[in-house]
């Protein structure tokens, strides 16, 4: 008989306790982030979407060589002797014309090795992490701006493996 009443008392105490805990949480500020409206500030140097400032790219192909997933494709050609010399922002001469510079972000594993390899530091990770697209082909980013001088079919200088 005594255990019976003790059980009832314990039950009531448990209910009161758990409801007190619940009510404390009711008035706590919520931890939800209203995502599309509010965003986390990403930590500095976090690895997200790649960007190539192609004006500074000397077309050396180090990035393509170091990439473990082979997702960078660089195609270059020599600039002609008579062309005016072009320089990257840090003064390195751009002896090669980069006419293809494609990164397949769908393949990229965000290791960041390419950005370390880049001698002119033009290939960087940006803070942008919202770049979903409807077709996987749109994940191949074409950075190159210049057109090749040598007509198609002639000898290509491609350091790329891809």
């Amino acid at each position, binding site marked *: 008989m005594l255990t*019976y009443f003790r059980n009832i008392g314990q039950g009531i105490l448990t*209910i009161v306790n758990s*409801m007190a805990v*619940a009510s404390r*949480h*009711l*008035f706590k500020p919520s931890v*939800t982030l*209203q995502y599309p409206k509010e965003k986390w500030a990403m930590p500095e140097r976090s690895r997200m979407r790649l960007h190539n400032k192609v004006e500074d790219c000397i077309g050396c192909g180090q990035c393509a060589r170091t990439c473990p997933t082979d997702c960078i494709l660089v195609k270059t050609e020599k600039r002609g002797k008579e062309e005016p010399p072009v320089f990257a922002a840090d003064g390195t001469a751009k002896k090669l014309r980069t006419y293809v510079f494609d990164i397949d972000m769908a393949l990229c594993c965000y290791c960041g090795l390419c950005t370390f390899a880049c001698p002119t530091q033009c290939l960087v990770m940006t803070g942008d992490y919202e770049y979903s697209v409807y077709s996987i082909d749109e994940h191949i980013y074409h950075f190159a701006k210049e057109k090749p001088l040598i007509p198609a079919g002639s000898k290509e200088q491609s350091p790329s493996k891809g």
Partner: protein
Amino acid sequence: MESIAQLLQKIPKYDGLPEMLQALIPIIVSSIVIFALLALAVLFMVWLERKVSAHIQDRLGPMVVGGWHGWAQTIADALKLLLKEDIVPESVDRVLFKMAPFIVFLGAFAAFVVLPFGASSFVTDLNIGILYIVAVSSLSVIGIIMAGWASNNKYSLYGSMRAAAQVISYEIPAAVAIMTVVIYVGSLSMVEIVRAQEGGFLNWFLFRNPFLFLAFIVYFIASLAEVNRTPFDLPEAESELVAGYHTEYSGMRFAFFFLAEYANMFLVSSVAATLFLGGWTAPFSILQFIPGPVVFFVKALVLIFIQMWMRWSLPRLRVDQLMYINWKVLLPISFALILGAGWMAIL
């Protein structure tokens, strides 16, 4: 039906209609009004439940639809449910399967007829009001059994069997707790019960004497079990029974089960508010100016909030614990209470 019938009288040429129509129209109009109010209240309650559950779990709940704190989310969801395809599985008992949600809803809906929302705003004042509510609200369990049986699904059947066992057993302590109030009022009419509690919150049966206070708690617990709310939501225990008796339902029929669940919640809260919290009467005489229905809804909402609060803080009971609480705890206590309350009434 008084107030609605009176309003209808003001329509020109209303008296010229045939007798039959004159008797029928007030019934139809009042059921439409109650249905509309009920649907609105349920939409609000579903929204509230999501908000309460979210904030108890340190979340925000719906925030986008409609702008301010996602107030239109449940409207969008209701529309979605109504527009969905009505799927009737191959091997169900079609007639019972299609009928069940409406019977479940009918049980809740019919009980609203005698609820006194205000001093003059009720559909009708039966002299056996509370008895009628107890009787009619057990109709929904028949619908639940129909749903479970007709679904031809073991989980549905388990759920409805549990519902039957649970609702029928918890009806006894609930009815006995109601009887303690009836001892004091000497009438089963809902309006009379509220009239007996007029004049400030000290006259409410909740604060009259300790026996009635305990009777309120017994009624509250038993009513939670009757409407299958957590911690007594065994009939639809998601973790064991998929969704219990409404596993096979979708679209509009599911919406009716949902509507019935929340309508039942509202019903038991309103009954508790009427019996123990003074119905439409204001707690203080300075608050007398507030219209009765508003006071009534606030009281019912407070009780609904407590139901939600309990739901999101307590885990579900086991079947044997459920039966233990009813037969070994609530029932003896409620019998002791009725004796005590009767003794106090004689004194």
